[in-house]
C-alpha cells in the first residue's frame, strides 16, 4: 500500500523509514509550501486553524502522488486537533480523493483500537511480530536522534561564524540518521551528527540572549509553519530552547521536563487542567523559562487556537509576576515572514536592553 503522513519538522525521516520497513511504499509528504497552504485554504473551513489548513494541503498533495492511506494521530479533545482526521476524511471524500485517513487514538483511551490498527499495518506488510517490534523500536530511536540533533543545532547556531554553517551541518547530520538501518547504526549516526554540529566554527566570545519557545505543537514543530523562526533567531544570534519535541515525554534533560508536573506549576494562574492542546503547558513553561534565567519567551500559536487564547489571556499576569517578557505570535495564512521578522527583531532589542539594565543593577548591588 502507498502510505503517507503529515509533515512535521524532520520527523518524516523516521516515519519514511517506518513505512518502508513495514513493507509498504512511502509517499513522503513534501515540506509545506505556499502551494500547500493555498490548496489547504481553498478546501478547509474558513475558521479552521492553520495546522488544519496545512494538513489539508499536504493530504491533497500526497493524494496527487498516489497515497492511498494517510496515517495520523487522533485525540480525546478538547483541542480541535483530535477531530481533524474525521473532518479531513469528510473533505477528501467530498473532493473525490480515494484516500483513507487512519488515526491512532491515544492508546490510553482505547488500547484495543490502537493495537488493531497496528496489527492491520503489520499483517498487510507481511512482518512477523518480532520484526515488527524491532521496526517500531528503530523508528523511535530515529525520532529521538533527530530531536537531539535539531535541539543541538539551536544551541550551536547563535555562535556560528559564518551564516548557514550550522544549517548545513544539521542537514548532514540528519542525512546520517536517514541512512541508518540498525539500532547501533542509529546510535552511531546520532553521535556522528552531533559531532558534525560540534565541529561548526564558532565564536565562543558571544553572549547570546536566551529565548524559550512555547505554544501549540504543530506551529512550534513545523519550521515552515512558523517561518523558520528558530533558525531566524539563531542567525540573529539568539539561543533558543523549545518546550516541545516529538520525543518530549520521555526526556529528562530539557528545561520543561526538569520540574515534574507542568500543570502544578501553572495552577496558581489556571486552576484547571488540561484545557486541550498545550494551553496549560504554555503558562507553566513561561514560569519555568523565567526561573531558569531566560531573557524572554515567544508564544507561537495558530490564529484562533482555543487553548492558546486562554493561555494568552493569562500570560500577561505571569509575565509581570516573573519579570519575563513574552511575545505572542498568532499565525494564519496571511502572516508574512517580514512581519514575523520585524516583531522578533524588536523583541530581541527589548530583551537586550533589559539584560543590560539588569546586569547594571546587579553590578551596582555588589
Amino acid at each position, binding site marked *: 500500500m502507498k502510505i503517507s503522513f503529515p509533515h512535521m519538522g524532520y520527523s518524516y525521516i523516521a516515519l519514511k523509514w517506518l513505512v518502508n520497513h513495514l513493507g509498504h511504499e512511502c509517499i513522503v509528504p513534501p*515540506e509545506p509550501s505556499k502551494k500547500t497552504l493555498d490548496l489547504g485554504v481553498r478546501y478547509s473551513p474558513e475558521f479552521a486553524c492553520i495546522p488544519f489548513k496545512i494538513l489539508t494541503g499536504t493530504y491533497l498533495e500526497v493524494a496527487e502522488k498516489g497515497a492511498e492511506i494517510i496515517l495520523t494521530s487522533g485525540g480525546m479533545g478538547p483541542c480541535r486537533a483530535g477531530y481533524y482526521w474525521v473532518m479531513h476524511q469528510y473533505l477528501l471524500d467530498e473532493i473525490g480523493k480515494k484516500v483513507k485517513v487512519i488515526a491512532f487514538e491515544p492508546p490510553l483511551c482505547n488500547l484495543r483500537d490502537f493495537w488493531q490498527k497496528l496489527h492491520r499495518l503489520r499483517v498487510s506488510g507481511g512482518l512477523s511480530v518480532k520484526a515488527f517490534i524491532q521496526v517500531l523500536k528503530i523508528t523511535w530511536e530515529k525520532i529521538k536522534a533527530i530531536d537531539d540533533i535539531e535541539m543541538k543545532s539551536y544551541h550551536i547556531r547563535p555562535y556560528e561564524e*559564518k*551564516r*548557514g*554553517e550550522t*544549517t*548545513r551541518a544539521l*542537514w548532514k547530520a540528519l542525512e546520517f540518521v536517514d541512512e541508518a538501518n540498525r539500532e547501533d547504526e542509529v546510535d552511531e549516526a546520532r553521535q556522528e551528527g552531533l559531532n558534525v554540529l560540534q565541529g561548526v566554527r564558532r565564536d565562543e566570545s558571544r553572549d547570546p540572549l536566551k529565548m524559550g519557545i512555547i505554544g501549540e505543537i504543530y506551529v512550534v514543530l513545523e519550521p515552515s509553519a512558523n517561518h*523558520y523562526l528558530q*533558525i531566524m533567531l539563531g542567525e540573529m544570534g539568539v539561543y533558543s530552547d523549545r518546550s516541545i519535541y516529538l520525543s518530549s515525554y520521555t526526556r529528562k534533560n530539557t528545561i520543561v521536563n526538569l520540574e515534574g508536573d507542568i500543570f502544578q506549576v501553572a495552577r496558581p494562574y489556571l486552576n484547571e487542567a488540561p484545557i486541550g492542546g498545550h494551553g496549560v503547558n504554555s503558562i507553566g513553561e513561561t514560569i519555568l523559562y523565567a526561573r531558569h534565567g531566560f531573557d524572554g519567551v515567544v508564544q507561537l500559536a495558530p*490564529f484562533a487556537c482555543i487553548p492558546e487564547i486562554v493561555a494568552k489571556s493569562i500570560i*500577561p499576569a505571569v509575565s509581570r509576576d516573573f519579570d519575563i*517578557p513574552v511575545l505572542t505570535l*498568532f499565525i*494564519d495564512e*496571511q*502572516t508574512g515572514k*517580514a*512581519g514575523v*521578522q*520585524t*516583531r522578533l*527583531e*524588536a*523583541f530581541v*532589542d*527589548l530583551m537586550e*536592553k*533589559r539584560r543590560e*539594565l539588569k546586569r547594571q543593577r546587579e553590578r551596582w548591588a555588589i
Partner: protein
Amino acid sequence: MKKAYLGVDVGSVSTNLVVIDENKQVVAAEYLRTSGQPIATVQKGLYSIGQEVATHFEIAGVGTTGSARYLSSIIIGADIVKNEITAHAIAASSMVGEVNTIIEIGGQDSKIIILRDGVVTDFAMNTVCAAGTGSFLDQQASRLSIPIEDFGNLALKAKNPVRIAGRCAVFAESDMIHKQQLGYNNEDIIAGLCEALVRNYMNNVGKGKEILAPVLFQGGVAANQGLVEAFNKYLEIEVIVPPWYDVMGAIGAALLARRAVEKKKKSSFKGFNIQEINFKTRSFECQGCSNACEVVQFFENDDLIARWGDRCGKWELQAV
C-alpha cells in the same frame, strides 16, 4: 562642511527620508509614496534630499528602517539596519525624554510602544487585519468622496459623533452607509469614524497595555485633528503630536546611524546620486539539494552586490 546623518524609512505605503545634524535637529525631510516601487522611490527621494543638503552637509552615517529596510540598506549603503519599532522608540525618546507611551499609526500597520525610563518594556503591532490602521480611514474617505486631508477639520465640527460599528473596514463601511441613509451629516459621521478607529486600535493593539502620560501620537495620520481629539477623549490624556510626527521612523534611523558610526568610524554611504544606477533583481532555483531554495540576486548595474533566499548560506556573498 558640517556633519549630518541620513535616516530612511521605506514602508509599504510611504518612503520617508530625513537628514539630522550633530545636534539631532532635522535639517531636511522628504515624504514620498512608495507606490510599490521601493527602489525607484528611494533613488528619487535620495536625489531630491541631496539637492537640499549636499552643499552644506556631509553625510557621516546612514540608517534604514521600515519593511524594506534590508533592500534599501543595500541600495544606499547603510551603516545600520533597524526594525521600525526600535527606530520609533529612539526617535520619540530623543524628542520627549520622559515619554512613556507611543501610539504610532501608519498606512497598513499600527503599533503601540511602552517605554519606562527611556527603555522599551513592551510593544504590540496590529495582527491580521487593517482595523486600527490608516487605511481604514483612507477607504472610508474615498467612499465619502472627501479628501482625507479634510477629515480632521470636518471631524472637529461634529456636534454628535455617530457611533460606527465595525472592526474591519468592510463592516464599518456598511454601517456607515446605513448611517448615511438615516440622514446623519458628514461631520458627525467622520468624527464617528475617527472614534471607531481609536476604539479598534485600543481593542486590537492597545489591549491590556498600561498607557501612561506623556503619550506621543505619531505616524502619518497624526495630522488628523479629529483623531487627536478622539484619542484625548478615549484615553483622558492629552496626547502629544511631535513636530516631525510623520517621519519619526526615519529620524530614529538617523539617530541610530549617528550612534553606529561612532563605533564604525567610516560610513558606507554611496552618495545621493544613485538615480542613474540600474538596480535589478534576478532569481534562480538552487539545485544544490531537494530544498530548491529560490535565490534572489541583486545587481547594481552589472555588479552582483547581494544575494539572499538560500537557507544554507552557500550563496552568501563575502563581505567586501
